[in-house]
């Protein structure tokens, strides 16, 4: 089973994304976007395409816009074909912004942009851990996951969704994850539980088929317990010795993808 991780032009989370896929059993390759454009049939060898986090084109002209434009001009047909097959796509953070700009998610009616990712309400970059609940949807990426504790790190992570589209998202079960507070209730756009002011507390979306997951939080940064904040204190009664390489919430997403193809 093979996962293709895209790199280039300021994408910067490809190494840890590759690790997440290989740790769950995939064979992974980091492929530069220009190489993929030159040889788009490479896609046929892979079950997964991952758009990792980063700052493609420095977020200039809007995060994800320039890279989406490049893909649209050079790779869109091949990518669309890939999506129609029994294959999975994930976009994390900047990858999520790229997928949204490509219109691949939520893709309610067509592949034009239907939602936008705009600057955080705080106008400040936010790097912090948040809590998510998995909403009602059928994406294989999220099988059996109810809640997740993951980090976000973004300047433009606020999902802006017109009222009419909000209804559609709910109707078609396209909301993948939402920010929640400490008690497990929806964050209701309250900072810092909802770190960016996202409409409907949306943190992740899928397409109708469920094979594309576009999420702002970073599951690849939460593969192990020791990556969580204060993991030393969580284990007050025991010793630290058994914490090594214990998996954390992000692992399950990648494992789900592997199990889907198994």
């Amino acid at each position, binding site marked *: 089973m093979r996962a293709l991780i895209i790199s280039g*032009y300021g994408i910067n989370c490809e190494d*840890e994304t590759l690790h997440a896929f290989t740790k769950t059993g995939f064979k992974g390759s980091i492929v530069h976007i220009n190489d993929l454009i030159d040889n788009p049939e490479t896609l046929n060898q892979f079950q997964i395409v991952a758009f990792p986090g980063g700052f493609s084109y420095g977020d200039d002209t809007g995060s994800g816009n320039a890279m989406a434009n490049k893909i649209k001009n050079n790779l869109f047909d091949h990518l669309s074909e890939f999506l129609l097959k029994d294959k999975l796509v994930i976009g994390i953070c900047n990858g999520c912004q790229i997928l949204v700009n490509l219109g691949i998610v939520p893709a309610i009616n067509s592949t*034009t942009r239907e939602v936008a990712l705009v600057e955080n309400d705080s106008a*400040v*970059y936010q790097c912090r851990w948040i809590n998510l609940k998995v909403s009602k949807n059928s994406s294989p990426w999220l099988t059996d996951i109810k809640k997740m504790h993951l980090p976000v*790190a973004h300047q433009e992570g606020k999902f802006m969704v017109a009222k009419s589209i909000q209804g559609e998202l709910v109707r078609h079960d396209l909301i993948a994850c939402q920010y929640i507070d400490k008690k497990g209730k929806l964050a209701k756009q309250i900072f810092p539980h909802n770190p960016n002011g996202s409409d409907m507390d949306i943190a992740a979306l899928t397409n109708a088929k469920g094979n594309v997951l576009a999420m702002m939080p970073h599951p*690849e940064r939460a593969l192990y317990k*020791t990556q969580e904040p204060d993991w030393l204190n969580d284990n007050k009664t025991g010793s630290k010795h058994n914490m090594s390489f214990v998996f954390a919430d992000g692992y399950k997403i990648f494992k789900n993808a592997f199990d889907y193809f198994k």
Partner: protein
Amino acid sequence: MPSQIQILNIHSTGREKSLAALFSRKQLANLKITEVYYVSVNLSVKQFTQAGQLLCNPVSQQNLNAKNIIKILSAYGKFKWVIEVRYLPGVTDNVGHTAEEIIRENLKNVKKSLSIGSALLYFLDTKEKNIIDAVAAENSNPLIHGITILSFKDYLKKLRSNKITDFNVKLSQKKYITKKINLNVSQEELHQIGKQGILENNKIRRGPLGLDVASLQAIQAYFNKQKRQSTDVEIETLAQTWSEHCKHKIFSSSIDNIHKGIFNTYIRGATRKIIKKRKDNFCVSLFSDNAGAVSFDNDWLVCHKVETHNTPSALDPFGGAITGIVGVNRDCLGFGKGAKPIANTYAFYFAYPHKNYDLYRQQNKKNPMLPARLIAKGVINGVRVGGNCSGIPTPQGTVYFHDGYAGKPLVFCGTVGLIPRKIKGQLSHLKGAQPGDHVIIVGGRVGKDGIHGATFSSEKLDPNSPVTAVQIGDPITQKKFSDVIIRELREKNLYSSITDNGAGGLSSSVGEMAKESGGFAIDLEKIPLKYEGLYPWEIWISESQERMTLAVHPKNVQKVISIFTQRGVEATSIGKFTKKKKAIVRYNNVDVMNMDMKFLHEGYPKFHLKTSKPSFINIKKSQIKKHSFKKELLTLLASPNICSKEFISTQYDHEVQATSIIKPLQGEGRVFSDATAIKPLFSSNQSLALSQAAFPRYANLDAYKMAACSVDTAVRNLVVLGANIKKIALLDNFCWCSPEEEERLYQLKKAAEACHDYALAYRTPFISGKDSMYNDFSGFDAKNNKIKISIPPTLLISSLGIVKSINDLTSICPSIKDLIYVIGETKEELGGSEYGNMFGYENINVPSVNPKKALKLYNVFSRANKKDLISSAISVHMGGLGVAFSKMAIASQTGMQLDLSRINLFGSANTLFAESQSRMIVSIKPSNKKFFEKLFTRHIINRVGECTSKKKFLCRLSNKDSIQVTVSDLTRAYKGNIKKL
């Protein structure tokens, strides 16, 4: 034909909200910010519409034009004035470049000359001039921005007229290729040349060379011997290469009776002695490369480098800081065969952000210093954009405030890198350009950016400084070539040497690398330029950012260039490294420089420095009559130097690369960490701990003790976190002032001596360092009084240490029922303390460090930690025990019941707030009491209390003094108020 694309965000953006929040509703009820893209060529209506769509997100944005603007904007307010902020010609415009790339990719037949200039428009519904000016000041800097303020009506007129200000650089034709410079002139004229630069044809001088008369006389003598006049390129090159910034003459010159100089005697001297004493392979590459490196494990090396970017940050805080951080990233990429940057560090020294200093570089309120708040804000933002966009985590930092930084902020930027010990069977830290290798430059193009940057930082900030010497970084260009170097070229062994282009540009990087082969010959006309019309000397010394220089064997040149090209990076062969020890530069086959390498690097006159001990500094000693220790503790916790820096940590991505293991914020109470750790390899549990320490307030009282405390704290912070003291390395960054004053040199010498003594005592080698000597401001206040502000001498010690296993890591969060111990001695040492600073209570007792005792204590601590006896631990430094206890309580949100009366030997204030070094607070589980106390039998430790489930902080100091405060009050105070920058 429309020539500008304007885009409006239909919602109220975060940026608009936070800008509005600076003003009251009455001052400014509504504002709207739009993005503008100016197009340099004529587009057809169809092309223009298409371009507009490409840059506009139809979900969240809308295209504005002369026809629809009034109608659309009226929905947002009655706008009366408009501010336009755009980049001045020649300033890097990343947004403009990306827009250009997008348009070019879609509009296939667009003119080759297309270029896009970006701008922001601020529509305001006020007429108040002071509000309009305040909005402009908040969002622009006249050094890099063109600012136009128009009434809404005039703006509409301008929009309809469709006239746009030219944003491209247009230089006039070159008048010559090179100038012959006659140095056989009077001493007075030599002085003028050195101070103000070479005289141009139009009788204007080029700007400071920073060469003193003695240096110019050495150049004169050399060329007289060559029987010819020197060229301008040669003099400009020597000015770069011999600058204080590049040669560190103050650190290398003989001083008093120290003939080998401060650096060789104290810094490198200590390291050499330590290497002899250590019988391991920990030290790998020290002081010889762009960064210093030590062993991480059997297969990997870690390197670390810290740089300062003070003067550029004083002029353009954002640009100065972003080029500071991406610049030091390149030091890491340029270490050995190229190390991957795995962590950034920062240390900022600012004036108090909400204090009005009102300083001017020129008389009559001309050329003002930026307000302290905007400097702090710009610097913090610059490091954020540089670090985050490069995908390098920034876990470790510190921020400090003092009036002495009002004329010059200090901006320390550091990078840690990781590199395999061997690449293709060869040791990775060794490299060497070979004769015949091509000189390949990669990355950004060359413009006039930063000309005279290296000589500039060796000069004081005064009216004649060229304020054009600023640059804006382009981290994405750098990220692109960084990926190529680390991921593709390095493993294929396609280059024999690599270095970064920093201060002095190519003249410096090529000149340095050529030492490896012998010499070099460069053809300047091959260098890609941002715009035409640059003179050869400008091309050669330009400090345009985001460039690396590689030495590549002729057979690999095509391959290397094509790999870079495939990744969207420009790479060009510009000449060759030679065996012949000559430094040759040509322009269209004309020699513009031809010097001996030996003269280039060693021809500068050596001098001898003298120091004299400063006279005793008189300290105002005020006694506090009636203490309220609770109030004092809360005030101190809320003070800028102690309070939480969470607002910085959360905007610096410290999770990217997925390596963070001890984070910059700890516990439920999110306490800002003294030390942080990353686990750089997914497959290994070995971690890398980072910390920093500086005590600027001690410096003028006792520079020796100041440096001793810095080394001790930087080491202790890592030990407390769980690092192995035998695997700790240090970096020294001296930022000094007025080196022409013998008293300042005395302080410098004493501080370096302490670095030597304490590094040796702890056997923690210095592996890299840097100094910046001229951190003074000379100017005027608002009343035209002449003012000189010198920074307090600031020595930043950065430390990095290996943590063998994650089991050794400790947290600062104690658990309920834990017993609490103070380890180490609390002495009568309030001198230079933060407490003294806050309450005007000063004395000269700066903490002194007994390194032998301290080392023993640290070893016992590590033993206790290895035996799993430590539940939590924190290092005690600024703010003393009072602050350290509070941080533990805040982090864990648990109460504490403490009795310090037993260690209260010099008064309650001293007990709580003295900053005596080598102390730690440790909490342990009650069941470990016997074991723990036994380990420390022969050391000074005191059990002072326990953690409680009641969220109260109760601290008895003596029969009459005590503190009772809730943990939530402590927390509230600690959150501070500096975040509103």
